[in-house]
């Protein structure tokens, strides 16, 4: 055991049991999985991804490139760092070979989300972050303070003195003051992983209580203070991937947080001052420590002299001995120092990710040997070690200026920047997570790469879970050396969100399953469910597609529903139809300008079909318009286009024609629409609405009438989307279920049949009525659809008119809507199929075979007793009667071109 009494801040009164690689261990609250393993002397975890080399715990937090585990219990999670997994009782994990395994069972854990708005967000509760948060709180600002570790204080060990207090006591004082201020939200175990535009920061909280496992905090801050510290940088030498090789700061962290001494024979290889504190602390904890310092003149090594720690100056470690665990450090002069822990420190890389996320430029600082924020950004300030100010006193001053607490200045000896020592490049690991070596960088440069972004992609350095936290700058440095160019010119790769891996489940939060996307149902939804309807998604709407009876598939159900509509009576729920109430003195003017036909001439009480085009003359929507009063119209739109058309009307009204006195309002949800369709529809409507004269003379096609049923206003309209005698019943949505029941009851003698969207599609296609978005695609004009009749000749202008006169719109080779009748009278052509034709000699033209158009709609028809299709075909209307071919699987199916109206072309059925 290497757990030390009197060290660390774990709760030794409680014991936690856990299993790693089938071996049972114990630990304590406050442990990470890594610290608990190291307390048992276990460094080794799994193997590397490519070379299968032993891997161990290399650091104490998110910068570790190697110590990866697969969690098995409490719930399978792949590729987590042992260093960041807080120990819990019953945890089961195993080391991985560079790959994890996703759970095969659903995760029952909840994830949720909170939104925050604040004056200032401080990221990092180390000394600089605490000082910044306290300053803001004292100024009365709303503050959010987040920190990714389990407790505030950052790297403060307690051995430092701040404002005359032990540093951990000072940190506790600040935390207490923040808590008492009432304006600070302080979240530990919360990692800010993405910094986006306008002060928007996403942070992931790992929760230890409450209903959710993790919570994403969406924080909108007027100012962001980045106090995220710095990450120690290794130096590359041969076999630097052996278990037992670790960042120097990690050993100190483990000692002070968890009372774990990661080794007893320790070599510290450094080019920087900070490792001396590690050496001294480990010595005091009972380890035998030797320091190997790159610098010719090591710093006034006071603590080491006092402790009789041997310091080798002007020396380097060139390799690690040992296979499954390090046994010795090979020095540049050939000597080997036996050890069971080889600590490395090559200086510090500021953790400036959150600055880079918002496109802050980094610049190389030759004294640091690292990239640091190189410009001022509005709203974002980087302070302390994250800003490259590594000493405590300087970092506090950087954060709060003159308000900085008093700290004894520590003189620093400049870091010597050293990326790697001489050695075999194939055994010098740069990115340990990717098994990428100096040799790989040599290959990349040899292949002609001169950009660090290219080298990154060629070598995969920096693309693993750690995103190159420890390897990125080293890779830049080595690349620069190989190219003989200064690293300043080469730059470094771009940091992008997320800073740490984030589970999709956390990002999804509660928005999964039924809550994944809003679902819109009509007021009759329960009726359809009870009737056994099969639903389809139309935008966010759930629409009844068909109502199969026992033993029926969709084809059989649709044939039956179609037959009912053409021979008896059928009813559907058309409530999803977009409905816009257009009111105002200039309502008619607006509609005249937006529709291709004349709407202002429509008389009150009448209905007109209309088409809207864009400026390009292409059709964007169609629907019926009911004139309710001189200054009021009810416009209907395609279900999926309701919002688009409203937006379109608002755009013209607000930008081009603000002088028009018109208001437009969506009433889609307020009105239910129930089409009653078929030769017997008059009987049903007449039976339910006894006050209404439903004869054709009194209630003609394309007219509407208001009536009242049991005190409830109802609007009836003679509108047909099937060619049959039909009535649309409009009613306040709240009364729709009752009215639906009344209509079904009245229709019982006629076997009234509910029908769905599929039958609606077949019925309209038999009549050649196009559906915008199915038979059109934004390149189709009304003329292409054979609807020149809907284009006004009287109006001087309307949206799209000028485009109709463009040369391309007059091209006789434009694709036109026709119907296709497969000559075998049996094949239903797949929608989307291409149309080709044989040459005169009966063979296909050589590839590429010219495509003449495509099938837009295709169904089996009960009325025709055969399949048919609608298609957009080059010069289609001039080719009626000719035969083309459609590839279906391996076959070419012959189809005859026909006019679009296949059922009742003379229109004899619409009046019953």
């Amino acid at each position, binding site marked *: 055991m290497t757990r030390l009494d009197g060290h660390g801040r774990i709760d030794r009164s409680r014991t936690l049991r856990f299993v790693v690689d089938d071996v049972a261990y114990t630990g304590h609250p406050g442990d990470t999985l890594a610290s608990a393993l190291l307390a048992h002397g276990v460094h080794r975890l799994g193997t590397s991804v490519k070379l299968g080399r032993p891997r161990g715990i290399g650091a104490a937090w998110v910068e570790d490139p190697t110590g990866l585990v697969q969690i098995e219990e409490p719930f399978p999670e792949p590729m987590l760092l042992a260093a960041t997994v807080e120990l819990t009782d019953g945890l089961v994990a195993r080391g991985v070979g560079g790959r994890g395994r996703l759970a095969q069972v659903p995760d029952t854990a909840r994830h949720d989300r909170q939104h925050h708005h604040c004056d200032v967000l401080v990221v990092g509760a180390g000394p600089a972050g605490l000082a910044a948060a306290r300053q803001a709180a004292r100024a009365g600002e709303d503050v959010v303070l987040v920190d990714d570790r389990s407790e505030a204080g950052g790297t403060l060990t307690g051995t430092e003195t701040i404002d005359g207090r032990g540093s951990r006591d000072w940190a506790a004082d600040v935390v207490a003051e923040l808590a008492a201020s009432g304006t600070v939200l302080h979240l530990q175990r919360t990692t800010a992983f993405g910094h*986006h*535009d*306008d002060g*928007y920061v996403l942070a992931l909280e790992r929760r230890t209580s409450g209903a959710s496992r993790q919570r994403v905090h969406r924080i*909108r801050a007027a100012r962001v203070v980045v106090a995220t510290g710095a990450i120690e940088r290794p130096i590359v030498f041969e076999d630097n991937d052996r278990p037992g090789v670790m960042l120097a700061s990690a050993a100190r962290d483990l000692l002070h947080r968890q009372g774990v001494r990661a080794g007893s024979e320790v070599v510290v290889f450094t080019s920087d001052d900070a490792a001396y504190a590690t050496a001294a602390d480990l010595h005091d904890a009972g380890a035998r420590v030797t320091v190997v310092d790159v610098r010719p003149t090591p710093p006034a090594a006071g603590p080491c002299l006092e402790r009789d720690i041997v310091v080798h100056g002007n020396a380097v470690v060139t390799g690690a001995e040992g296979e499954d665990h390090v046994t010795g450090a090979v020095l540049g002069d050939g000597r080997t120092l036996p050890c069971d822990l080889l600590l490395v420190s090559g200086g510090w890389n500021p953790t400036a990710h959150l600055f880079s996320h918002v*496109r802050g430029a980094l610049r190389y600082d030759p004294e640091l040997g690292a990239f640091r924020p190189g410009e001022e950004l509005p709203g974002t300030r980087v302070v302390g070690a994250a800003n490259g100010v590594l000493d405590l006193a300087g970092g506090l001053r950087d954060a709060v200026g003159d308000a900085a607490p008093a700290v004894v200045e520590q003189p620093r000896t400049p870091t010597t920047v050293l990326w790697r020592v001489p050695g075999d490049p194939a055994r010098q690991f740069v990115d340990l997570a990717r098994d990428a070596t100096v040799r790989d960088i040599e290959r990349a440069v040899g292949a002609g790469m001169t950009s660090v972004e290219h080298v990154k992609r060629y070598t995969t350095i920096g693309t693993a879970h750690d995103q190159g936290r420890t390897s990125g700058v080293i890779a830049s440095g080595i690349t620069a050396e190989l190219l003989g160019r200064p690293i300043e010119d080469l730059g470094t790769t771009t940091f992008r969100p997320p800073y740490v891996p984030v589970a999709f489940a956390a990002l999804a939060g509660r928005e999964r399953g039924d809550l994944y996307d809003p679902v819109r149902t009509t007021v009759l939804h329960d009726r359809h469910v009870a009737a056994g309807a099969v639903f389809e998604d139309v935008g966010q709407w759930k629409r009844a597609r068909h109502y199969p009876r026992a033993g029926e598939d969709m084809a059989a159900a649709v044939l039956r529903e179609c037959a009912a509509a053409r021979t008896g009576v059928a009813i559907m729920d058309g409530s999803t139809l977009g409905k816009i109430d257009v009111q105002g003195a200039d309502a008619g003017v607006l509609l005249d300008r937006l529709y291709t036909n004349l709407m202002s001439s429509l008389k009150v009480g009448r209905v007109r079909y209309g088409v809207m085009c864009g*400026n*390009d003359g292409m059709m964007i929507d169609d629907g019926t318009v009911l004139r309710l009063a001189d200054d009021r119209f009810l416009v209907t739109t395609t279900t999926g286009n309701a*919002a688009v058309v*409203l*937006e379109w009307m*608002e*755009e013209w009204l*607000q*930008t*081009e024609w603000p002088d028009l006195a018109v208001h437009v309002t969506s009433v889609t949800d307020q009105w239910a629409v129930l089409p009653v369709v078929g030769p017997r529809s008059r009987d049903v409507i007449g039976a339910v609405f006894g006050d209404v004269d439903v004869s054709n003379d009194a209630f003609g096609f394309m007219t509407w009438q208001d009536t009242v049923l049991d005190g409830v206003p109802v609007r009836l309209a003679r509108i047909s989307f099937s060619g049959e005698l039909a009535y649309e019943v409009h009613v306040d949505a709240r009364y729709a279920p009752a009215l639906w029941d009344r209509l079904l009851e009245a229709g019982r003698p006629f076997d009234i049949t509910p029908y769905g969207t599929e039958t609606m599609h077949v019925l309209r296609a038999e009549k050649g009525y196009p559906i915008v978005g199915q038979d059109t695609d934004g390149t189709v004009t009304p003329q292409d659809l054979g609807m020149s009749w809907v284009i006004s000749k009287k109006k*001087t*202008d309307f949206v799209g*008119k*000028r*485009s109709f*006169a*463009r*040369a391309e719109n007059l091209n006789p080779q434009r694709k036109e809507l026709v119907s296709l009748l497969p000559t075998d009278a049996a094949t239903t052509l797949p929608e989307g199929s291409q149309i080709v034709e044989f040459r005169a000699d009966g063979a296909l033209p050589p590839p590429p075979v010219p495509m003449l158009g495509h099938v837009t709609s295709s169904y089996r028809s009960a009325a025709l007793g055969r399949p048919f299709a609608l298609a957009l075909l080059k010069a289609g209307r001039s080719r009626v009667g000719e035969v083309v071919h459609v590839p279906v699987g391996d076959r070419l199916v012959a189809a005859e071109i026909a006019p679009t109206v296949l059922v009742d072309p003379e229109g004899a059925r619409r009046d019953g």
Partner: protein
Amino acid sequence: MQLIPCPWCGPREQTEFHYGGQADVAYPDDPAALTDEQWAHFVFFRDNPKGPFAERWFHSAGCRTWFRAVRDTRTYAFLPGSSA
């Protein structure tokens, strides 16, 4: 996620808005008088500057106001006070 300055509602998150393309492209007084080329320039041609760009935005999930704002295409930032 950006904040977009709606002149009526103030700064709101970008998911509440729809983009409306370049602003200040006025509908011609007399489309019939234009050549095909002139008409095509109105319908299809838009500027693509590097820098400030006047745009139309629609607060679709809010007050349904169409408004004009100037945005710098290099930084995405809306110029303060530019929305109306």
